[in-house]
């Protein structure tokens, strides 16, 4: 809200610079955002919080300045205006809960081509309000001055009586801004016998508006229940100073004073003769002001500062509150304009902000010293992140909402949760996985000369499962480029499946899961069918690892070999505690075997068979070479394994090992048709 310094100082004029006044207001809760010199005046721009509807006027701001500077406020003299004619227009309030106080009057024989005086135009201009016509300008002026929105109707356009009611189904209205709106049934209207005239408290209709041929007007000054006005601006897509104030609560005791003030200004500027006031009040629906019980010990309990009784009374009286002392404190009656002060704690806030928050001391709370648990059964995410950081990954943070097309490309079988009002069409779907964001980040970097990219991210992914929305914490990674950064002494090679797998295995090892996990070849629509694995551990699916499907990479114009992995953190992070299994004092025996098998026989198949057959003495199996080519039959490969045997209680004897090895070879031959390499 903008206002003129000169205008403000007509109401209250402390011996301080406008900067100092602005600072006082800011510290007390009315933030001054800008002070700009305009001609010989200064424009002060305030940001008024939603709870201080009473400050949306010169009168309101002046009151605050007066309280903060201990100065009286000069309100302009507002008297009941002479009633020269007897004309009234009937007003019927059907919805009294929405409109418990309505004041109106007729003014006849105004001069439609009168001119708004310069001083008024200046005040309006400083506050960013355009000059329209004298009648409208006066209503705008009083809105700014006192905080009471008013509306003027062309009396000749009103039929029989004014009704304040809710809209009926199918009714429409053409507003002042020429917008035609379909009225909804919860909207409060000012209407007459013929139909809607205005959306009450928001905007008038064009047909009943005052024009430069209007000679008789009906002036409205009302209180509307905030609950009936709130949300209407948004609903109809309009913003008005009037609705803005009604939403936040206009003083229900202001209407008569405001209409007299407007009448006085109008009689002066456009002439004419005023009729008597028509006033409709329903006390039962006016906002009630029960006295608030303020306990002196509660002030200290909330603020941590003791106030002397005299300090409390001084501040509250300056704010216009009425006090009645009692044993424990006071009963406080709050002025009707203060919708924000309804509870004891609201009064305490008034004390604190007027006295100044800087007077409240700074403490550290006193609490019992209790030690906190530190579990070894769940790995913290920071440690997991650190492992990837140590392996050359940079952490990315990507948007949770992504391009629906990209997501469809990667996960064609899944439907994602879609936003009703996304910020853009490329950010309309909630991510099912971290891969879309990581791929987007990869592309961004490839477009900027980056050839080697290693990124990871942690965050929630979202999907619909039946009627439930499932939100899962995941860890995802993407790698592209060479396995190692460009350097002397290391042959440059593009990253491959096993480089990526090494990083994944490091995570599994960190979580004590490496030796209980298996990588199971499985298909995934986003991944290369021949380089795609589901990671399983103890019958749970931990995640996926694989190469981005080349067709997708091509469609997205991405370069090189790109590998992706993703983990479900709820499955990954639990850790089985370590347990010591003892140490043998006796030496181990190692035997190496080179086994030739068909290409389809996997490392796991071989290892598992060897483990099954070899028994307890076999402690480790190392796969240390895979070879195909010269000397190996077509469609076959040689896998070299190192077998470590050890007995806990004694040194093993060669013959024992030989028996075991022979048995292993026999079983491998039976199962896989395996042969030892020559």
């Amino acid at each position: 809200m903008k206002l003129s310094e000169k205008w403000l100082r007509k109401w209250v004029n402390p011996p301080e610079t406008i900067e100092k006044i602005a600072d006082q207001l800011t510290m007390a809760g009315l933030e001054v955002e800008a002070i700009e010199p305009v001609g010989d005046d200064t424009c002060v721009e305030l940001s008024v919080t939603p709870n201080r509807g009473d400050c949306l006027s010169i009168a309101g701001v002046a009151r605050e300045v007066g309280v903060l500077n201990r100065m009286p406020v000069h309100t302009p003299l507002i008297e009941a205006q002479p009633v020269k004619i007897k004309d009234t227009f009937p007003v019927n309030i059907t919805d009294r809960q929405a409109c418990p106080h309505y004041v109106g009057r007729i003014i006849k024989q105004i001069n439609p081509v009168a001119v708004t005086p310069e001083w008024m135009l200046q005040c309006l201009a400083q506050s960013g309000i355009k000059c329209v016509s004298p009648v409208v300008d006066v209503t705008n002026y009083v809105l700014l001055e006192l905080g009471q929105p008013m509306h003027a109707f062309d009396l000749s356009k009103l039929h029989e009586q004014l009704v304040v009611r809710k809209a009926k189904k199918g009714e429409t209205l053409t507003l002042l801004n020429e917008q035609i709106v379909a009225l909804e049934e919860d909207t409060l209207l000012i209407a007459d016998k013929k139909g809607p005239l205005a959306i009450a408290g928001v905007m008038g209709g064009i047909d009943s508006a005052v024009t430069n041929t209007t000679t008789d007007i009906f002036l409205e000054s009302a209180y509307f229940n905030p609950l009936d006005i709130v949300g209407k601006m948004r609903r109809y897509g309009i913003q008005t100073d009037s609705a803005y104030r009604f939403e936040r609560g206009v003083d229900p005791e202001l209407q008569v004073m405001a209409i007299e003030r407007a009448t006085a200004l109008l009689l002066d500027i456009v002439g004419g003769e005023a009729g008597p006031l028509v006033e409709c009040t329903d006390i039962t629906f006016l906002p009630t002001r029960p006295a608030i019980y303020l306990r002196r010990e509660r002030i200290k309990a909330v603020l941590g500062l003791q106030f002397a009784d005299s300090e409390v009374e001084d501040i509250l009286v300056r704010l216009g509150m009425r006090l009645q002392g009692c044993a424990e404190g006071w009963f406080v009656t709050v002025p009707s304009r203060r919708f924000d002060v309804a509870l004891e704690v609201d009064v305490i806030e008034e004390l604190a902000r007027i006295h100044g928050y800087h007077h409240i001391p700074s403490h550290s709370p006193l609490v019992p010293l209790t030690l906190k648990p530190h579990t070894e059964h769940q790995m913290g995410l920071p440690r997991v992140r650190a492992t990837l950081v140590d392996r050359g990954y940079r952490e990315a943070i990507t948007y949770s909402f992504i391009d629906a097309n990209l997501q469809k490309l990667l996960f064609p079988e899944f439907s994602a949760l879609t936003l009703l009002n996304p910020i853009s069409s490329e950010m309309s779907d909630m991510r099912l996985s971290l891969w879309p964001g990581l791929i987007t980040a990869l592309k961004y970097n490839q477009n900027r000369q980056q050839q080697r990219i290693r990124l990871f991210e942690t965050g929630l992914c979202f999907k619909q499962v039946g009627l439930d929305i499932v939100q899962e914490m995941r860890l995802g990674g993407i790698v592209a480029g060479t396995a190692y950064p460009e350097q002397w002494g290391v042959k440059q090679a593009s990253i491959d499946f096993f480089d990526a797998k090494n990083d994944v295995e490091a995570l599994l090892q960190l979580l004590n899961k490496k030796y209980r996990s298996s990588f199971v070849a499985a298909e995934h629509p986003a991944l290369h069918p021949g380089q795609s694995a589901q990671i399983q551990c103890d019958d749970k699916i931990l995640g996926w690892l694989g190469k981005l499907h080349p067709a997708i990479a091509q469609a997205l114009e991405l370069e090189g070999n790109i590998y992706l992995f993703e983990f479900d953190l709820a499955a990954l992070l639990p850790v089985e505690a370590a347990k010591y299994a003892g140490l043998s004092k006796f030496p181990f025996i190692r035997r190496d075997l080179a086994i030739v098998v068909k290409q389809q026989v996997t490392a796991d198949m071989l290892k598992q068979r060897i483990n099954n057959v070899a028994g307890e003495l076999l402690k480790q199996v190392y796969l240390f070479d895979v070879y195909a080519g010269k000397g190996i039959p077509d469609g076959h490969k040689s896998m070299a394994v190192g077998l470590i045997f050890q007995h806990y209680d004694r040194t093993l004897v060669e013959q024992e090992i030989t028996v075991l090895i022979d048995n292993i070879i026999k079983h491998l031959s039976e199962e896989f048709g395996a042969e030892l390499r020559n």
Partner: protein
Amino acid sequence: MQNLTELVKLAEVAVNDAVDINQLDAVRTHYLGKKGQLTEFLKHLKHLTPEERPQAGKAVNEAKQLLLDLLTTREAVLQSQVLKRRLASEAVDVTLPGRGQHQGGLHPVTRCRERIEAIFTSAGFEIEEGPEIETDYFNFEALNIPPHHPARATHDTFYFPDGHLLRTHTSPVQIRVMQNKKPPLRMITPGRVYRCDSSPRHSPMFHQVEGLVVDKGITFADLKGTIHHFMQHFFEADLKMRFRASYFPFTEPSAEGDVQCVLCLGKGCRLCSHTGWIEVIGCGMVHPNVLKQVGVDNEEYTGFAFGAGIDRLTMLRYGIDDLRIMFDNDLRFLEQF
């Protein structure tokens, strides 16, 4: 005897001429081996008379010892030469880069978030997290923001067709925790939040850290102290703070906390719009309506709550001038941290 002396002289020359251990061993064998020259002398001793034997024997043994000493000395010299050559050949250019993988790094927002978490856990705060797709109840109503409340305008919300929304702050997590845990409570709730704001200095997704302390005897003074310390530790500087009256539906009294401008230390500059202060945090005493909703007796317990933008604090901490750059994930940006 003269032969012995000459032999020793020859042996001496041979030892000194040996250029490597192999040659030296050959010399050793030639003179002291089974069929060595000096060994032959020892064999001849039996041809001497008993009177001549002792003296001759002594001379031979002396010669033998002399040779052994020479050999030992020469061996040491040769070995030292071998070591020297080896050391020289193994020398490297220590200024060449090391081999292998390079270190990565955390996102600056995560770095700040982890630091903030550490500051608060050091005082016994729990870290609580919750869903990002929320209900209207947990995001607004339980926080004393009824439907159509004007305050909702500052929380431009993303909605789903079924009425769910993306949380606009992390306060919903505090409500969820309070439904299950009774006071005393102290927690922070960091995480992603979403607001439908397309203005240039804003992002539709950002990070907040909110905090809540509910206990007996908690006052506004405790709030001021806790937040001031937090800011001082976060910025690692003895920055002044000021608290100005403000409004949030879920706190009363409410305040905005400003920290002394980190760049100009209060003198006035572009960063702080020449005010000397930077707004960093919103806070206040928890509103009675909020406590009532979760069944906490406000007469017995009071609490304070606060909320700050982690991205904003990150930008102030590291001097980053553009919010959106943080979610581009440009490696040239990430590598600066």
